[in-house]
């Protein structure tokens, strides 16, 4: 099971502050596709990054069950 933290507009799309995926490992790119498939509303926003263990991740990176994973929609601090 991979647990994905959700913030901002992503939290509102998922309707929860986390999303659980019944997989033991997958790539960031696969996670991205899974999210677009389960929640088509993601195509309505400007896109999102994925963070793995509190660092921005590239599409090729592998995610496993012990990683801390988060959806990072466009940031707007300041």
């Amino acid at each position, binding site marked *: 099971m991979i647990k994905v933290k959700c913030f901002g507009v992503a939290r509102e799309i998922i309707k929860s502050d986390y999303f659980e995926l019944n997989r033991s490992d997958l790539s960031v790119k696969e996670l991205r596709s899974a999210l677009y498939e389960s929640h088509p509303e993601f195509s309505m926003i400007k896109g999102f990054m994925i963070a793995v263990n509190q660092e921005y991740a590239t599409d090729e990176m592998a995610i496993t069950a012990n990683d801390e994973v988060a959806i990072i*929609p*466009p940031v707007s601090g300041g």
Partner: protein
Amino acid sequence: MEVKSIKISDTPLSIDDAYQFVQDVSCGGNCLFVGTVRNKNKGKTVTHLNFETYEPMALKEMDKIADQCLEKFEVKKIAIHHRSGHVGLKEIAVVIAVSSPHRADGFMACQYAIDTLKETVPIWKKEHLEDGSYWVGARP
């Protein structure tokens, strides 16, 4: 000696805390940027903002910005303080303070810090208007 002060707070920020932190006997210039909540955006009336943060990652990204400022510019100390939660009109959303021997590097570091923060730090602003609310920058 501590040269970085990085903080996310759900209570009002103090400009003086940031200023006192960066002051140094070797520095003749102290540059502060204070971001506050304005009452209009794109012609709409804003009532308040709400900041959501991914706090541990946001603190890490703010710390990286501070390190970059210390490396790229001739600055001695830097403070980056950001609010979370409900922030009303005229209240402070962010304070960046930099001390430097001479002013030019202070101005550059301060600008670099706020510009980079807006691009990389996982903090999200929900703007509340008289007639609704929306996540800033989320939709095309």
